[in-house]
């Protein structure tokens, strides 16, 4: 990796956020974290991450809306979106892909698997 990829990790659960932050940092990503939708949108406004790990159910703005925002913003046209959600119904997954997400991973996930997929996505 020539230059560290910028990754934005979004989840309202502090422990999941904790593990994801550690995992991504360990794999050489430049990590930003957000605990809710509002924080996410603020960070997106100021930064251009290469990939966003996005939870769907959050207390304020839901992940789908954020994905829509990313996919419709010129600045983020190269930004990849990876949903990481406990919503495991086919209809929810389909909705994620329809909104333009590159990946949809259901919780709970295997760390190794997650990292491999994200790395593959970026290469």
């Amino acid at each position, binding site marked *: 990796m020539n230059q560290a990829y910028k990754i934005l990790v979004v989840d*309202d*659960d502090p*422990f*999941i956020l*904790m*593990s*994801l932050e*550690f*995992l991504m940092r*360990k794999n050489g990503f430049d990590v930003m974290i957000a605990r809710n939708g509002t924080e996410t949108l603020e960070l997106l406004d100021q930064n251009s991450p290469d990939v966003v790990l996005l939870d*769907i*159910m*959050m*207390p*304020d703005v*839901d*992940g*789908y809306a954020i994905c829509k925002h990313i996919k419709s913003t010129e600045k983020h046209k190269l930004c990849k979106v990876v949903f990481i959600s*406990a*919503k*495991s*119904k086919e209809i929810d997954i389909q909705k994620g892909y329809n909104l333009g997400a590159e990946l949809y991973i*259901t*919780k*709970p*996930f*295997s*760390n*190794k698997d997650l990292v491999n997929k994200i790395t593959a996505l970026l290469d």
Partner: protein
Amino acid sequence: MSKAIIVVSSLLYLLLLFCIAYYAEYKQKQGKSIINNAYVYALSLGVFCTAWTYYGSVGRATTNGIGFLAIYIGPTIMASLFFPVLRKIIRITKAQRINSIADFISTRYGKNATVASVVSIFCVIGVLPYIALQLKAITISFDILTNNMATSHNLLSDTTLYFTIFLAIFIIIFGTRSVDATEKHEGLVAAVAFESIIKLIAFLVAGVFVTCGIFNGFNDIFFKASHIDEFTKLFTMEGENANAGWFASILLSMVAVMFLPRQFQVGVIENVKEEHLKKAVWLFPLYLFVINIFVIPIAFGGKIIFQNMSVDADTYVLALPLHFNKPLLSMMVFIGGFSAATSMIIVETIALSTMVSNNLVMPIIFSQNKFKNTIDKSIQDTILYIRRFSILFILILAYIYDQFVAHYFSLVSIGLISFTGVAQFAPAIIGGIYWKGATQKGALASIIVGFAIWFYTLIIPSIAHAHIISDSILNNGPFEIFWLKPQALFGLEGFDSITHALFWSMFFNLSAYILFSIYSKPNPQEVYQAEVFVDIDIYQNPEKSNIWRGTAYMPDLYSLLENFLGKERSKNLIQNYAHRHKISIDMHAKADPRIVSFSEKILAGVIGSSSARIMVSSVTKEEELSLNEVFKILHESQQMIELNKELRKKSIELTKATDLLKEANLQLTTMDELKDEFLYTVTHEIRTPLTSIRSLAEIVHENPNLEEAERNKFLGAVVKESERLSHLITKVLNLEKYESGKQKLNLTSFNFIELVNDLYSSYELIAKDKKIKLSLQKPNSMLLLHADKDLLQQVLVNLLSNAIKFTPEDKTIQIVVSDMQTEIQVSIIDAGKGIALELHELIFDKFFQAKNQTIKKPEGTGLGLAICKRIVEMHNGKIWVESEVEKGARFTFTIPNFEA
């Protein structure tokens, strides 16, 4: 008077009838029906006044005084009942396309061919002499007018024969225009109404002539008559059995005015609109009143004038003007009597011929297999020929009876004998339209038994009197059995023969009707027809009166109808019906059941309902089973309670049950969906802690060189999340337990204040950690409660934990316990963010989060509140929240105090 003049005048009169009938049909084709008129309808009912009354009333008045009025009082009383009774009969007749009184009775009792033929045969037997009587009246009046007292028996020189032939032609022309017997006979009815006017005018003119021409008004006649001894008693109702005879006559004529075949024909079959009844109710009695005004004056006048001459009182009307040499007036009176006779013959013949052809001839023809399936274009013609033949047959029979049989009998009471015969139908008809329990066997028994008694008590004596059989039967009874004497049955003596016959025939008729109806079981068709007849107002709508479960292919139905009605007409009828009821016709598919039912009704109009059933069933495949099943329900319920009520109740119950079932089904589906949703929510809830546990454990596992602090942080999180997971699982299991009812309340009596105190002290510490103040407000005394202590503690814990979770630092949580006598009330008031009004109920819902929302609910309001709600409800208490956004929330629950 010259015979030729009379014959020519009579023929001219008949020609006039032709013209009127023709004109009426011509107008009808232009769409201006003459008989669609209340006055014409009322006048046509005047066919009740036959030659028997035209001539005979005067005769009766000379011997019975005002007794002759009985047979007009009856119809007058009946007219007041036209609305409830006749209107109902008209409605049924129209709805079921009934074409005669026999058809009416048979249709009511299951469209049974036997009933139809029995009624038809009895009608012919009972009424034929009555027609003969009319012919007799014509002959006698003709003879009087021509002064030809010697009755000629040379067939070819008998003018009555020619009149009969003429009438037959007339009836055939205007009576068999259409194969559909329910179609109105415009021409005939118009002619009959016209004849009612002619006989009325003729009789009134004769009356005025006698009263004012011969005498000087009513007073003069009565004054002179009062000098004749035998007259004084006529003014009163004295005399032997006058009351009983009077009563019987009134009763008989009440029945006759509706159920004589000719009265049924004009009053019901030919009725165009039931509204016409409104006028008929007073016009018809008025007609009867007017035509009778001069009966007494003519009777007394005749008696005075012909005091010492042998002139038959029945001929006074004609004899008086003849005696005073008034040829024109005599001619007029003759024509009046002629019209009374012919109108009766016309209508009665039409009615009888319809019955004979539809109920006696056609069932035999159509039950033969070769007619069932053939497409024979000549069926229509066949039917018309059968009708025409029947008309001829009846008139010939009447003529033969008149010529060769009648002179053996006294003709005097033939009218009343006919009335008594027809009265035998009354129970079956009246009962049939008001009593659903009446059955086919009951009706058959009633009619057959009634007629048997009628025959035995009235006809046998006539035959005996004529010395055709030994008259010892009258004096000693058959085989010397004294109590079987036909005129003193079972020792009943002292009544006139009509009263006697009426009493016994009705006694046995009604008994048979009721007993057989009660003890016989109706077949499904009968049950259904009974329902339709009695509740005609419900079933008038043909769509509702449809129970046909058979299937038939359209082409089969069409070809069947075409045979009887022709291509054009069948097509029009079916298409109109289909259009009216919004049924689409597919020539290649099975016919709509309503079309099948309708086709049967059309055919019923042509060949009678019993034959129509045979024909239609030949092209349909009936689903016997389902039909029977339907009626089995009907049948069984009928035995317990009145059928209709039960049926309606049943159908309401059925609807209710269906609704309940639907509801239950819906509930199940919703429950299923909810269950799915719940499971999904639960697994979703479980996934979150599981995700961090797995992820963090993997990190620790794969990074043995983690710093001590970081390692502890991760492991601590794993422990915490594991705890969260097990809490969640416990809650889910608890909730499941409470909801399924598996959890039984472990009721004990305890001091609720103590419980609150304990909780308060342990939570005070937790609150202190979060810098939250806790306050408790409670009654001073102890509060004894009979409840499940552990479960109530759970409620309090859940509510308190939530309150602490949402209340920010430095704020206070209030706990308020109040004794409301019958219940205790506990409120926990936090100072959190509050809850929006629309969520007040939803937060107690365990599925709150499941409704596909992606916005996460506030933490801690998961299953906890659902569990609280369940526990409180298990104690028959209530739980609710009062809150406004940003102003904190007040959760309150109540528990009834069982010991209070």
